[in-house]
């Protein structure tokens, strides 16, 4: 199984996470992040969403992020699935599943991966409300979440 999948088809995040564990009985901890499409955003009901991406670059960007996580923590497996194209409310948008022997590494790596994906991987969301379509704006909190990891990296380095 490749660790990264970008797909126009609906996917089952739970089956993906189960597969990650099933291949390795040394796995003691799995942390999943599942991003679900909400039926509400910025105060408005949302009835549909279209996810655009940059084919080619998307896969490269995700592979780079996974390689970075694997170099920082002891991981036994990573699976990222990201939906593109048209979605309906309550469908999964993204799964980031991380398997490790112990839980600390799995938690750190999973949150790092989704924080970086949110700011470094070329996906764009457009949502449909009763007033028509609109592009979702980038959130400052996502930038702040990414910046946090950079501070941690420079801390790690200065402690070496």
């Amino acid at each position, binding site marked *: 199984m490749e660790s990264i999948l970008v797909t126009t088809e609906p996917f089952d995040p739970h089956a993906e996470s189960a597969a990650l564990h099933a291949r390795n009985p040394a796995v003691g901890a799995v942390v999943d992040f599942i991003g679900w499409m909400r039926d509400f955003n910025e105060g408005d009901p949302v009835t549909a969403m279209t996810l655009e991406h*940059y084919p080619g670059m998307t896969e490269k960007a995700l592979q780079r992020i996974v390689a970075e996580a694997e170099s920082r923590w002891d991981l036994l497996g990573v699976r990222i699935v990201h939906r593109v194209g048209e979605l309906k409310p309550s469908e999964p948008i993204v799964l980031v599943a991380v398997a490790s022997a112990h839980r600390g590494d799995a938690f750190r790596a999973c949150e790092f991966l*989704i924080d970086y994906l949110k700011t470094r991987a070329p996906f764009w969301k457009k949502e449909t409300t009763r007033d028509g379509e609109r592009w979702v704006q*980038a959130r400052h909190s996502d930038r702040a979440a990414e910046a946090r990891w950079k501070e941690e990296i420079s801390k790690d380095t200065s402690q070496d």
Partner: protein
Amino acid sequence: MNIQLRYFASLREAVGRDSETLEWEPDASPSAADVIERLRARGGRWAEAFAADNPLMCAINQEMCDPGQRLKEGDELALFPPVTGG
């Protein structure tokens, strides 16, 4: 020299196309910012799409880049708004 341009998401809609080939003076090595400046100079929807207060990201050959990074013949420069996946 030729630069392959790609536009995504709201920027693609604002300029009304998803790609084009941009000719540049031979032996120059323009930065991504230089290219953006020339696109802005087209005026109209281009001036609006590339207005200085419009946050923009860029990638050269499918790697995120700083606006100061320089291009060479045949490079692919992608321009797009801040990403919102996940």
